[in-house]
């Protein structure tokens, strides 16, 4: 009997380690492409040309990053995207809050109507071309507002926030109502302060969406290249050979620099988000759960 249990616990210990090893492998699969990219962006030209760079930089070289940081084009796009991200995040959080809050009052007349209005948009989307022609008629083509306004309220995120609001005890609200607090006041001094976790989550979702988005810019902005967000600029650089040739003509005649330059630009556009998301992990896990689990 005793022997049996020992075999059992030994087997389960081995099992534990097997799972640990599997997880280490999975983590490596997630990380190695980034490590490779980082190594390339920091490597010397000769080593890149000879295909000798794997996961560790060879011939330490910061030239690529210097080029990126010296080029007004990247810095401009970086700053513009950052500004855009901040504006979009604040506006979207505001819109999401003012949409979710009234809908938690069960007896509000017209609440059902607004809910239906919202639900329909989740199932049926007019499509790319109707949206494009709409932006054209609103005069939003080639306009920076097109990167801000059309995406300022996500119905999915609104539902996440509304679910969170439902979790705040009604009694708090009701006692404030009895004390004569206005609905604005209740929102500002009860709901918003208690909703920091969900606000952090949705801020992350909106910010990542804007920082990573390029679809709208690709669709609605053609001529005004100065309005391109970072990702679209990056897309053009990765695909457009001319850009690389320009970089070579500008005095970086060594072949191979363009490759480390590409790696450096990709790194440069990713770093802000990679620095932020781990700190918000416990919040966004909760946020995803609120949005998707059936109650």
């Amino acid at each position: 009997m005793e022997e049996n249990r020992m075999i059992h616990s030994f087997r389960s210990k081995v099992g534990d380690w097997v799972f640990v090893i599997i997880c280490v492998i999975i983590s490596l699969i997630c990380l190695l492409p980034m490590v490779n990219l980082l190594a390339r962006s920091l490597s010397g030209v000769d080593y890149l040309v000879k295909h000798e760079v794997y996961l560790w930089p060879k011939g330490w070289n910061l030239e690529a990053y210097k080029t990126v940081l010296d080029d007004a084009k990247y810095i401009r796009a970086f700053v513009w995207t950052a500004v855009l991200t901040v504006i979009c995040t604040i506006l979207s959080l505001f819109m999401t809050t003012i949409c979710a809050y009234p809908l938690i009052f069960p007896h509000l007349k017209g609440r059902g109507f607004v809910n239906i209005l919202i639900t329909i948009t989740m199932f049926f989307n007019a499509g790319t071309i109707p949206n494009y022609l709409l932006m054209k008629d609103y005069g939003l083509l080639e306009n920076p507002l097109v990167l801000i306004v059309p995406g300022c309220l996500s119905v999915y995120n609104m539902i996440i926030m509304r679910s969170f609001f439902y979790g705040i005890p009604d009694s708090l609200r009701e006692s404030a109502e009895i004390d004569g607090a206005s609905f604005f006041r209740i929102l500002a001094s009860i709901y918003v302060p208690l909703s920091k976790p969900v606000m952090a989550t949705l801020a992350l979702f909106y910010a990542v969406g804007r920082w990573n988005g390029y679809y709208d810019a690709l669709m609605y902005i053609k001529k005004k290249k100065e309005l391109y967000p970072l990702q679209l600029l990056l897309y053009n650089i990765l695909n457009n050979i001319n850009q690389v040739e320009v970089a070579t003509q500008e005095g970086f005649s060594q072949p191979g620099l363009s490759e480390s330059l590409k790696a450096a630009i990709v790194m440069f556009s990713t770093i802000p988000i990679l620095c932020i998301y781990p700190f918000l992990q416990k919040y966004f896990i909760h946020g995803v759960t609120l949005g998707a689990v059936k109650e």
Partner: protein
Amino acid sequence: MSEVKAKSRGNKEVVTKKPFNMSYIRRYWQLYALLVLPVVYLIMFKYVPMWYVLIAFKKYSIVQKIWEMPWAKNHGFEYFIKAFKTPDFRTSLKNTIWLNLLDLVVGFPVPIIFALILNELRFKFFKKTVQTIAYMPHFLSWVIIYGLAIQVFAPTTGLINILVQNLGFEPIPFLNEGHHWVRTYIGLGIWQSFGWNSIIYLAAIAGISPELYEAASVDGAGRFSKMWHITLPGIKPTIIVLLIMALGNIIGSGFDRPFALQNNLVMKNAEVIATYVYKAGIKGSQFSLTTAVGLFQSVVGVIFLLLANWLARKFGERGLW
């Protein structure tokens, strides 16, 4: 979803019907005032474009308003018929469905398996670290993933092909040959989303009563029989809901992923509806044709969703609604 909760709460309260009059408005006007902006937004950016869908049935003209445009031939269905006669559209339709099916069959189980694996980890700190790392790809844009893919998969300069060549094999055309491209596309999709999608399953697993596991241990159940008989049935409703949503999306397609990853050499396998609409519509100005394509896609998507939900309910599951 959350309405259920509100309703059950509403039942407990004494429901007093208040008449919609001046005193009601005086009391609740602030809530309505808050809703004005969101409702205006929804109407301006979600409902007005639905009206533009009419262009699918009309002959588009840049100088006319929508209601002035003449109806298309064949009772307005000219452009739908034309779309199905266009080889490029047929290819994109076929590719959309094929890529989504592969995503579903190959990609759907991965986050479930990953969640099951994570659930077996005993060391809290290690588990959290693995999670953080696995969520990382979700925060990368598809352009950046494309940038990474070039570095790793490029024919002569990519990390993997350097290794392959050093070992004396022919380089693998991950990105520039149709069939390999499809595999790369599916693989990158899984890489980007498996960690993130596992969150929801982990939450569902956390909701399973620990007593069930304890009882099973007493009965001498091993690790895998617990997984099979307790964990999987416990998260089945979540799996079904996500499966329905995936089925509803079988003809839908995001734009960012295929557009960022495709290149001219693999178009025959890589063109999907979203990218076709962009090229033929926005770049090619065939507005009526591409609106028709988009409408077709939306309608079929809704039908699939309804069908999947109906099927789930028929098999005794709760479904989406």
